[in-house]
């Protein structure tokens, strides 16, 4: 083993025999991206920007009190979690089902289908938003018309528009279209990497396909699924692009996520509030990630 034990002799900071010079660029950039914003947000969250004098004024604790009494933010919070939970479940179920379909042994031209299937992932979400805005048009959108025909929604309450009752469904469709392939692709890789012995043993024992999936494959996929879910949770917590393009948070704030709320505050120069939201979502992301990694023992 050539593991370097730096403590045995003093290695200068700049020597390539010590780790720091290798890590320096990454550390500097990530400090600018994460440590500086964190500290800056804490300070700014106690202030209010005065556009007349172009200066920050001490405003403690008004921003923080405002945040937890502000119905817009609380609504955005609720919407982010509702939408995130539903999207996560739908993408997971669909993704696993699709991965199983692609994993069957007698699929011809598998590469071609897989290539077509993963293309939604590389469509920029903004472009996907424009596309779905058209496909979900209340009058001539194909998705809207299919949903009318199926009786899922009514013409008086279209996907986008009306009182906004179905607007989350509109965002959900875009997110599911774009990110189910991601879930499926990773589950598929997990399925391909499964050890053969347990599967063969189960088949010898006479397990049917249903039992094989629930009692053998799914438990073995636990680790892969845990990571996929974590990645989706992180992305769903920051959901912004579709909302900004398709609905701007409307109608009536019915599709506003936390990120979009923060962006709207940024636009209206409520920078103290932006910082408060920034800290809240950062703490939220850390708590959710840590709790999740602890419960599911995700290792990196």
């Amino acid at each position, binding site marked *: 083993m050539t593991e370097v034990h730096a403590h045995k002799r003093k290695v200068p900071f700049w020597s390539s025999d010590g780790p720091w010079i290798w890590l320096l660029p990454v550390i500097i950039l990530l400090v*600018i991206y994460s440590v500086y914003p964190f500290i800056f947000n804490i300070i700014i969250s106690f202030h209010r920007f005065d556009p007349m004098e172009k200066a920050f004024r001490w405003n403690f604790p008004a921003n923080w009190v405002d945040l937890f009494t502000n119905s817009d933010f609380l609504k955005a919070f609720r919407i982010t979690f509702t939408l995130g939970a539903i999207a996560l479940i739908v993408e997971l179920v669909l993704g696993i089902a699709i991965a199983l379909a*692609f994993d069957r042994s007698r699929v011809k031209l598998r590469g071609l289908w897989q290539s077509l299937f993963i293309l939604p992932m590389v469509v920029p979400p903004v*472009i996907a938003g424009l*596309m779905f805005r058209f496909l979900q048009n209340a009058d001539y959108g194909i998705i809207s018309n299919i949903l009318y025909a199926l009786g899922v929604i009514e013409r008086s309450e279209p996907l986008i528009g009306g009182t906004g009752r179905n607007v989350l469904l509109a965002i959900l469709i875009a997110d599911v279209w774009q990110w189910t392939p991601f879930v499926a692709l*990773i589950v598929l890789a997990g399925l391909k990497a499964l050890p053969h012995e347990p599967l063969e043993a189960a088949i010898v024992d006479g397990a049917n396909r249903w039992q094989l999936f629930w009692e053998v494959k799914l438990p073995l996929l636990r680790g892969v699924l845990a990571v996929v879910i974590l990645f989706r949770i992180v992305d769903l917590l920051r959901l912004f692009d579709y909302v900004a*393009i398709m609905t701007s948070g409307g109608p009536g704030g019915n599709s506003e996520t936390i990120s979009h709320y923060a962006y709207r505050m940024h636009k209206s120069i409520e920078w103290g509030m932006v910082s408060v939201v920034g800290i809240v979502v950062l703490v939220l992301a850390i708590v959710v990630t840590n709790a999740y990694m602890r419960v599911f023992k995700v290792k990196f």
Partner: protein
Amino acid sequence: MAVTQLPATGVAKPQTTQAARTARARHRRESIVQTSVAALIALIFFSPIIYWFLVSVKPLPYTMTWPPVILSEPIFDWYEVVVLGMDPNVGAKTGIVFNGAAGDYYVIPSLVNSILIGVLSTIISVGIATPAAYALSRFHFKRRSSLIAWILSTRMMPPVVAMFPLFWLYTQADQRVFSAIFGRGTSVLYDSLLGVLLVHVVINLPLSTLLLKSFFDDIPTDLDEAAMVDGCTRWQAFSKVIWHYALPGMAAAAILAFITSWNEFLLTLTVTRTQFRTVPVFGSTFDVSAAGTEWGALAAVSTTAMVPVFIFVLIVQRNLVRGLTMGAIKG
């Protein structure tokens, strides 16, 4: 199935012909069913893109009908506007009623920006993530695991956290520092290539570093040792020998970085105003809630922006899948 090519000896063919035939028929049936299911899934996910493309070859009135019409004569006037930057009202002879001004839909500048920023930021982020990943893999120093946890936490951080701090840093640094050095009104960070690049590099660093670390972990340390016994310093061992073995990892990280940069929206939107706007920022400038949305132009913009990256993905598909799964399974 080389076994079936038995030389024709006088030995009787294996019996069970009836059973073999039914088995073969069953296999064919299974193959048809399974292939149709896979094809159906692929088509369901790909069909919105085809449908959206078809909008880009229709005159405006035909885009806003239900049921949809498929025209026997596609028109490419939207592409003249979007790709060649032609004056939209020149195309009026084909029935396009255009509200936009010349250049509104000209996607090429932002496409060039997107590709330029994507390529440069990918090279830079993989370039600095690789040595860092090597160090995280090879050196066992105090705080190594907390450093890794911190890098991972920046991957999990929502970009709204950095949105305003970066905006403020950029504008203030330009106004107070760079204006003093380079003269009034200089934009070094805000609305400049450097500023956008910095954002795109930094959002890719965490994943690139952790992904590459897992690749270096799989390269035996004997190789480093051998190189160092031959008189290399550690830097030389890395720069002359070891990094070659991490090339597949670097390719996977580069592809992921490029796609992340290609899709990035919120931070680029925040740190640019008119210059160096990428395709997503360009796409966000259209008001799609208005009644007079020129869907054909938007569809042509989308298609033009999607085609290069689709070709790229089809070329690098193997590496992309590996990068995504490694990124998910190994971190």
